[in-house]
């Protein structure tokens, strides 16, 4: 039920009459409800201009419900079930809103609006072919909205269109996304923005929306996680926070809308261009910021279509398919904590169809319901395919830039999104937080390599020093990353649990234009991370790992073309770390650069899954053309581990707290040691450890068994510092 208070025409606002009209809200279309948004208080100047004009005041108390709202194209539908517009504070309550509408001498209409404590709820989003699965539900609280919308006749290109000016502010909002009674909540939402000179014109059969001047701020006070069968209301300070976000923006945009889907006559086609004039993004935990400042750039979308359609596997989804996307993003400064600027980034991209390995890749995503099949009926599944035809990354420190050019990426697979809780369901282990799952991903990327100084400078190697592969392809990637709160007195931040399995991968380094290089083929990589915290601190971005396990098995390490036959053999590295740490920061000395400090605690062997071990195997026997591990001659380093060499903790025995420490500083600078002082990748590294031990070095014959060549190796008191600049070969 809703009450409208109407003001009689031509009466001053402050002497209005009131009339109560009861309306049936179920008859109110959702787009009408959605149009009631935004607000700003009238100031005295505006009041004086309005006084004496035609006016109308609508005050209402609203609660509206809609059982189902459907978007249907070509006979396929996506359903929004259980829609309610009511009070944020209590279930079934009404929300109050007020609209002051006036006509000005110019013929424009001015709408001042105020909304308090409103909640929009959608219980489930389903597709018409799978009513048993849902994408989950959400609730959006809009609080203390104050806004002012002016609608003027005449668009940007014709008198038949309209022009709009909007001022909007709101604070204390909330957005909750829920799946299976677990909630990811953006709490304390605040939005202030203005958009001047907006216009909507019909140009032929195309609706053109222009927003030439938009600016404002968006903030998330805290990203929270909670568990409840009911949607959360009221203060949520007791729920742990993963941190907060702030976004400043100023941009101009144009959107062209027209009818026509990718898979039938019905659907929506969008072309758009956006110019980002200014911006800043800040992620903060416990008062410390990860800040991307001085943002600018542009984005152009061509032929983006929206349909409800079936993907290549016959699954119905909300289909977003793209013709091309081209753009650029400049990040002037990246700041981590109080460690200074890491430098700036320039990202350029062209997403377009391309042929890779005799297969055509395009850019599309089919949004479906269900999420992970074991987490419950609610969740998101994104059937995705991507194709980055050309990309480039520029990294600038102190005015000098390093480029990674000619980046291509392609792939396909399913990404699932669920809000989950600790526990095992149907044999799958889940953790508290937002779970990002990967199912049947296959893809890869490659790049030309580095260029220093300019985009057209001589190509050089060096990505390997940054921990990047120049080329990487994989036939199967499965697993999950769950981002949850730290909680339990650990402060704001992320708690990360991850399991990633990569099969049949190929990576390349030191690649030439003819694809000759060092290739690692037949890569199998298992990664397990348990309870890794991520927080922004005074020193930078800090990651602390409770337990990490990796098994990297390269079946065929070779030099030459990617299909080369001669091989070094198989190399396998297994790692087991406990209590390792990493801090990513600026240099902290006033100059720009990236500093990565790592302390890796290589623990002593516990069992076959928890150990540090290196294997080099040659001469494997093949079965059906596939080399069999363990059938060749192996060199095995067993039980590799770090040690303090003494009891530094006072707990008895030999402690293991110092680990393998590497402190790396990266920037772009001149090589003063080389003639002409060419610009290059500056790489300064310091590696320290008290002890790095190997339990034994064994030679293992497939039939003769193991023979121990060394019964122990102990490397002690090491401190290696290198100060290098990497340039092209001259």
């Amino acid at each position, binding site marked *: 039920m809703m009450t409208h208070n109407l003001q009689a025409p031509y009466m001053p606002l402050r002497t209005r009459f009131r009339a109560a009209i009861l309306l049936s809200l179920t008859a109110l279309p959702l787009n009408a409800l959605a149009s009631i948004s935004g607000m700003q208080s009238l100031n005295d100047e505006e009041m004086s201009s309005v006084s004496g004009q035609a006016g109308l005041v609508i005050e209402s108390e609203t609660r509206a419900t809609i059982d189902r709202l459907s978007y249907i194209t070509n006979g396929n539908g996506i359903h929004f079930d259980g829609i309610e517009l009511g009070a944020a504070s209590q279930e079934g309550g009404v929300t109050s809103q007020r609209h002051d509408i006036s006509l000005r001498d110019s013929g424009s209409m001015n709408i001042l609006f105020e909304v308090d404590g409103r909640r929009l709820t959608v219980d489930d989003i389903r597709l018409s072919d799978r009513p048993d699965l849902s994408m989950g539900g959400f609730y959006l609280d809009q609080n203390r909205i104050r806004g002012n919308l002016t609608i003027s006749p005449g668009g940007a290109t014709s008198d038949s269109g309209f022009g709009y000016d909007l001022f909007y502010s709101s604070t204390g909002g909330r957005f909750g996304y829920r799946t299976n009674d677990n909630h990811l909540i953006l709490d304390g939402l605040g939005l202030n923005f203005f958009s001047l000179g907006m216009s909507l014109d019909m140009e032929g059969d195309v609706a053109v929306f222009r927003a030439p001047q938009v600016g404002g701020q968006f903030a998330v006070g805290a990203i929270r996680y909670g568990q409840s069968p009911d949607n959360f209301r009221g203060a949520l300070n007791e729920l742990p926070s993963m941190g907060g976000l702030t976004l400043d923006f100023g941009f101009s945009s144009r959107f062209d809308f027209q009818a026509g889907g990718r898979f039938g006559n019905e659907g929506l086609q969008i072309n758009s261009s956006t110019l980002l004039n200014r911006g800043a993004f800040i992620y903060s935990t416990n008062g410390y910021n990860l800040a991307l400042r001085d943002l600018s750039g542009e984005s152009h979308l061509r032929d983006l279509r929206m349909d409800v359609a079936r993907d290549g596997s016959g699954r119905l989804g909300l289909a977003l398919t793209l013709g091309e996307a081209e753009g650029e993003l400049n990040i002037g400064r990246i700041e981590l904590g109080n460690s200074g600027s890491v430098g700036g980034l320039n990202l350029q991209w062209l997403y377009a169809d391309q042929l890779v390995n005799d297969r055509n890749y395009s850019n599309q995503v089919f949004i479906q319901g269900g999420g992970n099949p074991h987490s419950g009926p609610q969740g998101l599944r994104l059937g995705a395919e991507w194709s980055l035809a050309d990309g480039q990354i520029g990294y600038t420190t102190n005015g000098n830039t390093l480029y990674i050019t000619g980046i291509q990426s392609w792939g396909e697979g399913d990404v699932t999104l669920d809000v989950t809780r600790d526990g095992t369901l149907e044999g799958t282990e889940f953790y508290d937080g937002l779970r990002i799952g990967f199912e049947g991903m296959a893809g890869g990327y490659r790049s030309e*390599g580095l260029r220093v100084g300019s985009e057209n400078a001589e190509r*050089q*190697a*060096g990505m390997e020093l940054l921990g990047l592969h120049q080329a990487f392809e994989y036939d199967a990637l499965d697993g999950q990353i769950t981002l949850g709160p730290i909680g339990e007195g650990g402060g704001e931040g992320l708690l990360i649990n991850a399991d990633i399995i990569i099969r049949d991968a190929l990576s390349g380094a*030191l*690649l*030439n*234009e*003819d694809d*000759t*290089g*060092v290739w690692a*083929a037949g890569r199998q990589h298992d990664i397990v991370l348990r309870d890794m915290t991520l927080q922004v601190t005074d020193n930078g971005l800090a990651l602390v790992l409770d337990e990490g396990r990796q098994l990297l098995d390269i*079946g*065929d*390490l070779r*030099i*030459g073309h990617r299909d*080369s036959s*001669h*091989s*070094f*053999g198989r190399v396998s590295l297994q790692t087991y770390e406990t209590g390792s740490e990493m801090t990513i920061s600026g240099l902290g000395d006033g100059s720009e650069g990236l500093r990565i400090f790592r302390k890796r605690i290589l623990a002593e062997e516990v069992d076959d899954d928890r150990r540090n071990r290196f294997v080099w195997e*040659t*001469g*494997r026997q093949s079965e059906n053309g596939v*080399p069999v591990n363990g059938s060749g*001659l192996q*060199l095995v380093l067993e039980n590799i581990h770090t040690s303090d*060499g003494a009891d530094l903790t006072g707990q008895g025995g030999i402690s293991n707290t*110092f680990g393998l420490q590497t402190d790396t500083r990266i920037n772009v600078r001149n*090589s003063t*040691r*080389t003639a002409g002082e060419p610009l290059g990748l500056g790489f300064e590294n310091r590696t*320290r*450890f*008290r002890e790095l031990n190997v339990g034994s070095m064994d*030679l293992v014959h497939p039939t003769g068994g193991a023979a*121990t*060549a*060394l*019964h*122990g*190796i*102990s*490397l*002690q*008191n*090491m*401190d*290696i*510092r*290198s100060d*290098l*600049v*990497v*340039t*092209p*070969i*001259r």
Partner: protein
Amino acid sequence: MISTLLKSNARKARSDIRNRVSRGHCACYGILAAALPLFVMAMEPLDEESMAQVAGQAGMSISGDVFINEDGGPINNASFGDCTDNRRCGARLASQFSEDGGWWVLDDFRGRFQFDGLTLRVRHIDSGFAGDGAEFNRSVLEIGLPGTISMEEVRYSVGTSTTPRPTDPGFQQTNFYSVHMEGDMRLEGNALVFPTGNP
């Protein structure tokens, strides 16, 4: 063919260490070589023909300094300390060849190395090498030697020890010799690394 490559490159390679010369060696090298026969390292000088082939290839050239335990290591106890007193300030490598046996040690290793133009790239060889290159016809990992490596205060000792740590009970150590190197070491040509086995 490989033996020809090795022979011809060994003849062309030149190593000239001025002042005092290292005598260091490691028994484990022999074990490694016996265990891993499926790769080969050869040497060749970098002539103009090779230089011409470099253009357009995406290798890298590395220049700079490497310091090993310049101001001592991270351990500070009765045996290890900084470089200003009589305690070890270098690194220590201990290896045990037999179970319950003694330990071979490379002890108190430290020093500073400076170089310009150590290159790394993958290169295809299908010519040269007195006609062997055409038959060889495969890619190699080429490590371009920097010409001159300057050394400062490079020191180490070789010996045997009863325990891996000098702080372990019953520790005794006998050094066979100690080395101190200063000056420039000339390393010209390329080291070529290539696999010869199967996956």
